[in-house]
């Protein structure tokens, strides 16, 4: 109950920020429409809607990191957290209260992304629901990164690290905008060592119905997600103690 009250407050803070809605929902939609328009004029296999939509759905999650990190860092700087630390809320309440509201936002973003993809020609199938469901484990990675950065950075730094650096890294190293095979070498190795390309590949596997291909990518993503989550919780608890 106490945790849900805190989660509700966090959800309201996120949804009432027009920048959040603009970037979180609008920007991925603009990209999918723009790249589909390019595809209509100059067909490129990479930008075929069944290939593009999973990449955009995962790219949109990097904004979830930005939302959660911004909220936490603002709370830390505004003394609201200091007040709440003197209430019966526990460390678990805080962590779940920050993390849980992002999950429905992530799912909603995935639904909208795939919904627009259907309007642009993606065949309707049950695979879309599987792909949307798999957004949840992927969102854990991005939520954990938000908790992690929000615990150590101020809101200006969050804007730079999550708003610029992470969104770009998440985009370049995901194989959404260009085929990693074309670059090859160290870049490709780095990309495959990180979770972003695996997140996109598992969404692509789900959408194409290649369910057997999901698990290896899912394990890769969950490995990073759990590691990030453990580090995030430790850092959050450390800043809580420092308060």
């Amino acid at each position, binding site marked *: 109950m106490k945790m849900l009250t*805190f989660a509700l407050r966090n959800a309201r*803070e996120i949804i009432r920020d027009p920048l959040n809605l603009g970037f979180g929902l609008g920007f991925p939609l603009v990209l999918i429409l723009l790249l589909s328009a390019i595809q209509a004029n100059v067909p490129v296999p990479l930008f075929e809607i069944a290939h593009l939509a999973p990449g955009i759905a995962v790219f949109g999650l990097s904004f979830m990191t930005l939302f959660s990190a911004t909220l936490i860092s603002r709370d830390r700087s*505004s003394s609201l957290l200091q007040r709440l630390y003197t209430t019966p809320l526990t460390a678990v309440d805080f962590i779940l209260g920050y993390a849980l509201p992002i999950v429905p936002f992530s799912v909603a973003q995935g639904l909208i992304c795939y919904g627009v993809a259907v309007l642009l020609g993606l065949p309707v199938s049950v695979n879309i629901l599987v792909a949307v469901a798999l957004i949840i484990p992927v969102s854990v990675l991005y939520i954990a990164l938000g908790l992690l950065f929000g615990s150590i950075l101020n809101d200006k730094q969050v804007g730079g690290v999550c708003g610029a650096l992470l969104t770009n890294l998440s985009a370049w190293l995901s194989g959404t905008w260009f085929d990693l095979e074309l670059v090859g070498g160290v870049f490709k190795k780095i990309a495959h060592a990180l979770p972003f390309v695996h997140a996109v590949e598992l969404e692509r596997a789900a959408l194409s119905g290649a369910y057997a291909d999901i698990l290896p990518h899912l394990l890769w993503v969950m490995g990073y997600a759990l590691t990030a989550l453990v580090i995030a919780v430790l850092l959050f608890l450390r800043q809580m103690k420092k308060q």
Partner: protein
Amino acid sequence: MIAIKTENLTKRYGSLTAVDGLSLSIDEGELFSLLGVNGAGKTTTIKMLTCLSAPTSGDGYIMGKSITRDTQKVKSLIAVSPQETAVAKALSVRENLEFICGVHGFERARREHKIAELVRLMSLESIIERKAGKLSGGWQRRLSIAMALISEPQVLFLDEPTLGLDVIARSELWDIIRALKGKVTIILTTHYMEEAEALSDRIGIMRDGRLLVCDTAAGIRKMANTDSFEQAFVTIVKGAAR
């Protein structure tokens, strides 16, 4: 009954001693002010008493509960209105109050009753549906104090409650604090001499982490042999520096 007692309470950050062996006792229902210049140790003292920061040594007791061993129990007895206004800015005044009620686990009927009571006490009727982030500094402080009072604390900590407010807003907040006197034990930190003098039952003056004196405003004036409380403060603080 004693509401707050500290025994040799000390906080060190590396080589800096922020609070140095603070020992004091505050009665239930008393309004006690901690007065001092920047870096005197007022906020650090509040942070230790509210379990936000662990003492390096010594201990403190809120209604008999140790701030080092019974932190959850202490948290259920206290409330804090921090130095910076601590409100959820995207939420309306009502939603902020509901939020804190929820955090304390109030059921619906108690929540409604408590919000109505605080809205009356703090005269928040005219701004109840407005977003907290759009309010003036004075209204935000009122809301902040209302949020602190929701849990019906036995001890209320007000850290620089009128800092940065204009004369009228400060006067209105003083009226609210006066109305709370006797109902709840209040620990108030402030830079303002006139605020401490006008509101407090007793005043503790701190410098460099040490409690220099602890008495009524009249007692402190008498001790410094002056009719001006401000002059008494200056004399005591400068005297400690020598």
